[in-house]
Structures are given as structure tokens and as C-alpha cells.
């Protein structure tokens, strides 16, 4: 279906990533947000709070991030599309409810505008230090979807995408922004509503007597009911059977958890969203995401200008990781190494190493946070990697 035009501020704008994210949520049909103020994500809900009452929705400022991340789930079960946004310590506090949403298959969106950590760290400065927390932060086994925008335009586009994926897979979806992308102001083109595709909630069409809340459809995703419609369903974070009833049966637990993982993991290839530059003949591939990908592209361009065959692979959808594509690239003849640039001291690089399996050297250009890499610094590393290959030859 198409977006509700009332929520779509169509036109060309000069917005920061936080504002663009709020507009993305509104365009996606989100009419409920709960949050707790935390730099550098607060501007998202400030804009949302200003705009959404005019669209019949609301923003509720809760007493903490635990409250915010569960209040949105209550709203979802009442029928709303809902999201919350946070940063740093707030993201840590939300971990339990990311797990609850995964377990109860509650479609919702959580935006993390990453800042320097650990702990209070650098509230006003960027990092990409929550990338593995996004993947593994809640206890137990589950699969997650996470997107990494690299511009205000993508903060808009990928927030819509996040809502759509949340509905498609009935899962929490994370938008992993960073302070730079959040606070940077750029051109943002918001298309008219009839050009924005919206995935509606997958409500059951069965009558209450025939409805089993966790009986999966062909794609392993069960159809939802919402409160107040006579379905008298039960939702619990405990391991549950297809009726939604708690069980401690090991086989039932196995079935449930495997399905929760498989419904996303089986679709990993379909979920792959990458941007590629100069990969056809690349000897050195730089893998970077979020704001770092832009700096990396500059470094790749500098290398190309010097006659070095460098290329860029940017995962736009970071979880599930674009494993198949990376394996494909890594097994290509002529590739001498992969450089992973990220604003942390080695998170996604672990995933890259796992996928590459030692076929080519993988090197990390880490950064502890507070800024981005300088293109020159990445360029020099690319040169070094290319020269190392020359020497070997």
C-alpha cells in the first residue's frame, strides 16, 4: 500500500538526520513514539512531538528508556505503528525489550544514534560502537534486522524501510545512526506519498475460534491480532507454543527459537542491501558503513586517482550481515585484502573475518570515537596494503 499523504512532507528539504528520521517515521505511518531524552537522538522525538499531534498521534516522554521501549510495544498491540529512539546508555537499557519484541514478534523500530562510549562516554560526539550490541545485546538467541544510514536522506529512507521490514518479519528493527549523520544537515528529498511503499501490518483474517497467534505462515511469520478485537489472545515473553501459552517443553522451545531465527536468517540474501563502488577489479576492498562509508569512498577515490585498484563495499543493511556477497567478493582472484573502517576498535571486522575465513588478509582501521577517520589516513592504509602485495609479488 502507499503512504498516508498526511504524514508525508513531500518536497526538497534541508534537514539534519535526526529530523529526517522523524519525517521517515511519519511517512511510514508511525503515529506513536515514546522516548527519554538523550543526546544526540533527542531531536528526533522533538520533531516528532511537534508534528504528530497534527496527524492524530502522540509522543509520550517516559520516565526512562525501559519504559519507552516497552510502551511502544503496548501501542503496537493496540494497533499503532510505533518507535522509540535513543543513544548510548539508553540503548543499553533497551536491550531487554528488544528481546521481548523479538520473542513476542512485536513489529517496532528502535533508532540508536550512536555516540562515544563506553558508559556516558562522549555524549555529543560520534561512534559506531554499538554494532555488535545491536546484534547480540539482548540475552538468548534471536536474529535482528539493523540498518546503517550514511546521510540525512538515508535517515529518512531507511526509517521507512525499517518500519516496512518490522511489519514484514514481525520483528524489532534497529536503525543504527551515529551522531554525525544525526546532526548533519543536508538535502533531503521526500517523495510524494504515492511513491512511498508501505508494508501494512499482517493481521489475521481468521475468526477468533480458528486463530492461533503463533502459528507461522509459509514464510515462518505468524499473522497478528490486536487487542480489543475479540481474539482473546495471550502474549508472553516466556517460551510459548502456537497458542501463545507458556511452555517449558524443550522441543517447543527449540521449534520457537529456531523459527524466530530462521524467519530472518533464511531471507538474508533477500535482505542484502549494499552499495558498491569500483569492485569489478578491486585489489583492496574497503568495507565501511554509516558515516564512515563516505569517508572511505573519498579514500578509495584518492587511491584510484593514484592508480591503485581500490573499491568500496558498504552494507546498508548490516544485520543480517551481507555474508553471501562478501564471500563471493572474497573468493575472487586478484583480491589482496579487505580493509574494514569503523568507529570502534573492531566490531564488524569480526564478522568480515568470519565470512572471509582467512582467504584474504583482513585489516582493521579502527577509531575509538569522537570523530570520523580522515580520508587521508584511510588512503594511506590502502596504499600500504596495495604495496604489501606488490612486494610479495
Amino acid at each position: 500500500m502507499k503512504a498516508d499523504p498526511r504524514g508525508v512532507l513531500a518536497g526538497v528539504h534541508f534537514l539534519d538526520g535526526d529530523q529526517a528520521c522523524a519525517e521517515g517515521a511519519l511517512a511510514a505511518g508511525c503515529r506513536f513514539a515514546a522516548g527519554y531524552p538523550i543526546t544526540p537522538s533527542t531531536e528526533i522525538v522533538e520533531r516528532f512531538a511537534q508534528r504528530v499531534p497534527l496527524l492524530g498521534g502522540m509522543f509520550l516522554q517516559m520516565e526512562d528508556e525501559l519504559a519507552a521501549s516497552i510502551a511502544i510495544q503496548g501501542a503496537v498491540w493496540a494497533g499503532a505503528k510505533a518507535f522509540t529512539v535513543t543513544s548510548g546508555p539508553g540503548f543499553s537499557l533497551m536491550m531487554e525489550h528488544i528481546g521481548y519484541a523479538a520473542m513476542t514478534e512485536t513489529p517496532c523500530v528502535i533508532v540508536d544514534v550512536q555516540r562515544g562510549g563506553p558508559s556516558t562516554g562522549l555524549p555529543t560526539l560520534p561512534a559506531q560502537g554499538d554494532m555488535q550490541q545491536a546484534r547480540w545485546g539482548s540475552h538468548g538467541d534471536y536474529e535482528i534486522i539493523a540498518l546503517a544510514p550514511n546521510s540525512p536522506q538515508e535517515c529518512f529512507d531507511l526509517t521507512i524501510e525499517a518500519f516496512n521490514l518490522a511489519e514484514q518479519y514481525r520483528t524489532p528493527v534497529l536503525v543504527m545512526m551515529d551522531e554525525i549523520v544525526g546532526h548533519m544537515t543536508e538535502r533531503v528529498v521526500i517523495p510524494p506519498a504515492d511513491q512511498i511503499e508501505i508494508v501494512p501490518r499482517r493481521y489475521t483474517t481468521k475468526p477468533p475460534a480458528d486463530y492461533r497467534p503463533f502459528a507461522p505462515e509459509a514464510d515462518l511469520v505468524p499473522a497478528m491480532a490486536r487487542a480489543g478485537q475479540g481474539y482473546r489472545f495471550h502474549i508472553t515473553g516466556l517460551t510459548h507454543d502456537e497458542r501463545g501459552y507458556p511452555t517449558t517443553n524443550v522441543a517447543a522451545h527449540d521449534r520457537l527459537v529456531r523459527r524466530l531465527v530462521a524467519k530472518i536468517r533464511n531471507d538474508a540474501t533477500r535482505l542484502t542491501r549494499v552499495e558498491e563502488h569500483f569492485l569489478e577489479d578491486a585489489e583492496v576492498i574497503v568495507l565501511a558503513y554509516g558515516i564512515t562509508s563516505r569517508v572511505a569512498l573519498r579514500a578509495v577515490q584518492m587511491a584510484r586517482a593514484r592508480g591503485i585498484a581500490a573499491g568500496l563495499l558498504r552494507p546498508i543493511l548490516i544485520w543480517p550481515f551481507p555474508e553471501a556477497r562478501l564471500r563471493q567478493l572474497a573468493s575472487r582472484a586478484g583480491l589482496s585484502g579487505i580493509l574494514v573502517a569503523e568507529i570502534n576498535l573492531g566490531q564488524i571486522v569480526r564478522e568480515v573475518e568470519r565470512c572471509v575465513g582467512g582467504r584474504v588478509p583482513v585489516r582493521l582501521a579502527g577509531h575509538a570515537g569522537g570523530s570520523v577517520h580522515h580520508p587521508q589516513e584511510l588512503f594511506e592504509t590502502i596504499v600500504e596494503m596495495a604495496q604489501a602485495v606488490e612486494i610479495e609479488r
Partner: protein
Amino acid sequence: MSAVEIQIGGLGGQGVILAGMVIGRGLVLYDGYHVSLTQSFGPEARGSACSAQLVVSREPVLYPYVTNPHILVTLSQEAYRRFVPSLRPGGTLIVEEDLVRTSPLPDAVVLYRVPATRLAEALGRRLVMNMVLVGFFAAVVGLPHPDSARRAIRDSVPAGTETLNLAAFEQGYDFGLKQLAGSPVHASP
């Protein structure tokens, strides 16, 4: 054209960010440029050092930070002290003439002084000093196009203050044109 780096530095409360916003918005929405605007703040909401940085290009901007500005605007002595060393050789420096005392600068730097606060006070509101500055900037730098800047001001300022802000812009713009008609003040004595 390769990227042009612009930095506007001052104190929180001077409207530095809004000035950057108007320049950026004019360039993006009405002049067809790509612009990345970033901001930096001290921890306090008022009175601490802050700056707006714009990278302006015909191509999408990749690296969003300003490292060596082509054009530097300083509205406080602190901003002047902090940012002048990074000004690119041959760059343009604009200072608020009553708030910033300049020191000897490299030969090639083109220096402009604008009494933005006084011009704003003449309009009855010192607060619109930032729009006087935008007007002056548009005149001497040539970016954004003055009509684009005027439209961007209407888009950016609080409803009801458009007239005052536009008047401030015109004050600064006229002052800038007059300075251009003379010769720019060169930095070296």
C-alpha cells in the same frame, strides 16, 4: 568545482547555527549545491564556543568536516583565536568588527570587517546580527544568491519575524556591496 569549506564561529546565543542554516538552505534548495552542514558546541546552551561548518560542492559531499576553511567567519575573539590558524592560505576571513580584534595575518588572506551588531542595533534588535552577517556574506562571497538567501530566511526564521530578519539581511548585504565597491581590506599592515 571542488568543495568549498566554510566555517562560522562564535558564541552560543549569537545565532551562529541559524546563520549557517540559512546559507546552507539557500545553497541547497535554491542554488542547486550539495551542502553538508555540521555543528559543534560546548556543553552549555549559551555562551560557550560554537561553530557551524559547511562543505559546499556541486558533487555529493563525502567528508563532512571542515578542516581548512576557504571562508572563515568569526563572531567572537575566542572563535578567532581557535579557528584562524586553520584558515586556508588565500582564504577569506570575515570578522565582527566590534567583537574581534585581529592580529597580523598571512598576506594572502582577504579580510572583511562588518559591524554586524551595530547594524542590527540600528534596526532595534541586536538579535538579528546573524542575518546582517548572512547578508554581508552573500554580498562579499557571492554565495548563496541573494534571492536564494532571502527565500531561505523566510523558510528558516520564526513566523512573524520574517520582516525584521529580511531587513537585517538587506542591511548586511548593502554594507557588503559597498565594501566590495571599495577594495577589500588586506590583512597585512
